[in-house]
């Protein structure tokens, strides 16, 4: 599935929720189903810096595709991470670089993605693209 198709699928899934509490209740459930990050990746180095919530970020490029392993102590952020991982993991750096995260506004998560929020979401979204760009430069292999 392409990045665009996955986002459209997410928008359609969120249509059943008509308010903030419904959408965020769904995020909590999504967060619960996100597999926890392997302990070896929960290192000081992998912590997303400058965030109120401990969030770990690890990316790897394999066979020209990006794979993201992200985890957070916040259930809400875990929910958002599960969406981002679903959208971007397994995509090529080129596709990730050009991707527009149009689902954020459509499902009413713009506040969660605001750079003014003291959370990790904005930084995670930036890292996803930055690491893809770095992997693209390195020929589509390596770890960050």
């Amino acid at each position, binding site marked *: 599935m392409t990045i665009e198709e996955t986002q459209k699928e997410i928008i359609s899934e969120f249509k059943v929720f008509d308010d*903030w*509490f419904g959408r*965020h*209740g769904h995020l*909590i459930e999504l967060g619960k189903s996100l597999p926890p990050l392997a302990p070896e990746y929960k290192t000081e180095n992998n912590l997303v810096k400058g965030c*109120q*919530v*401990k969030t770990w970020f690890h990316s790897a490029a394999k066979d020209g595709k990006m794979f993201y392993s992200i985890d957070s*102590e*916040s*259930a*809400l*952020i875990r929910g958002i991470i599960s969406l981002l991982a679903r959208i971007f993991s397994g995509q090529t750096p080129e596709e990730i670089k050009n991707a527009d995260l149009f689902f954020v506004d459509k499902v009413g998560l713009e506040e969660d993605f605001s750079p003014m929020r*003291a*959370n990790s979401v904005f930084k995670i979204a930036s890292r996803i693209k930055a690491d893809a760009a770095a992997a693209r430069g390195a020929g589509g292999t390596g770890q960050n």
Partner: protein
Amino acid sequence: MDNQFVYDIARIRSDFPILGQKVHGKPLVYFDNGATTQKPQTVIDTINRIHCEQNSNVHRGLHYLSDQMTKMYEAAREKTRAYINARDTKEIIFTSGVTASINTVAFSFGEAYVKEGDEIIVSEMEHHSNIVPWQMLCRRKGARLRVIPFNDEGELLFDEYRKLINDRTRLVAVVHVSNSLGTVNPVKEITAIAHEKNVPVLVDGAQAIQHMTVDVRDIDCDFYGFSGHKIYGPTGTGVLYGKECWLKEMPPFLGGGDMIDRVTFEQTTYADLPAKYEAGTPNYIGAVGLGAALDYLTAIGLENIREYEKGLVEYGMEKLSAIDGLKIYGTAKNKSCVFSFSLAGVHAYDAGVYLDKMGIAVRTGQFCTHPIWDRFKVEGAVRASLALYNTKEEIDYLCGSLKEIKKMFG
């Protein structure tokens, strides 16, 4: 408390226009007063009126507006002196906030009296603004920072404090009321112990001055600092109280206009107190706004405020403690209306996001007191910090909301 006094909470709330609004469709419950307090109409009107009718730089011109503005600025200084019962207006320095107040002492006192091998004592419950300036001083001078620990309730350990004071101690800097734990420290006793060894004391009063009568002569501290915006006054205002004997002897912190007597390229002589510590154009409009805030509090009566808020503390502790899985950090016997807590199974950030959607403004995280949360070995908490306009009904609403949140994350 005067038995005849009726604490008219509806009238008090109506004095604060911001409180009437809705947030996310819910009536605003403003529980972030530890970060900043809201402003009564009288403060807003005072600032607005000055901008419309009286603005002119102070201490400079002999024209009408400047003269009027200077009188108002100095009247605000007198109000501040009276509010904390300082001896003289020379002992009241207007600053940009308590951070500037503490940094002024850390620099000026440090330059004059701290040398290699000396020690400065702070407590484990200090705000970063009463840690970092002393650390910077210690680095500059090769001095050492010593720390008074606190117990599980959030009360300072006096036996440890007594052990820390020695011949190398140059100053004790301690918080009056902890912004994270709400502990009201016995600063008079802390000062007396330091004075036994002739060690001066600085008290960070940022979270005390709005909740209780502060009498610097009774405390006998050498320095006392606070911020205007936490006492219903404008942002960018603050006060440093210092005993005249210290302020006279210490060198100034910032150099510039207004703090000088005579300048030549060879040498500068400094102005008398308090101008010596007020380089540049001061925030004179802010200071007058702060004076209006002090007038407002004085009219209600600090003892009446203390009594009303004591009721909020007792009620809040009882109701919050009854919530299954809720842990309160800071259970000192003498406690101000600050409730820091964690909710089992819910990250503080998540709780904060949900509370916001319910119209409740709280703070989450570590509240600029990292060492406190290192001591408790937790990543942070939710903090509800109350003020004179909050109510028991709002506490009930917070508790109900927390129970709902717990269910959602369960």
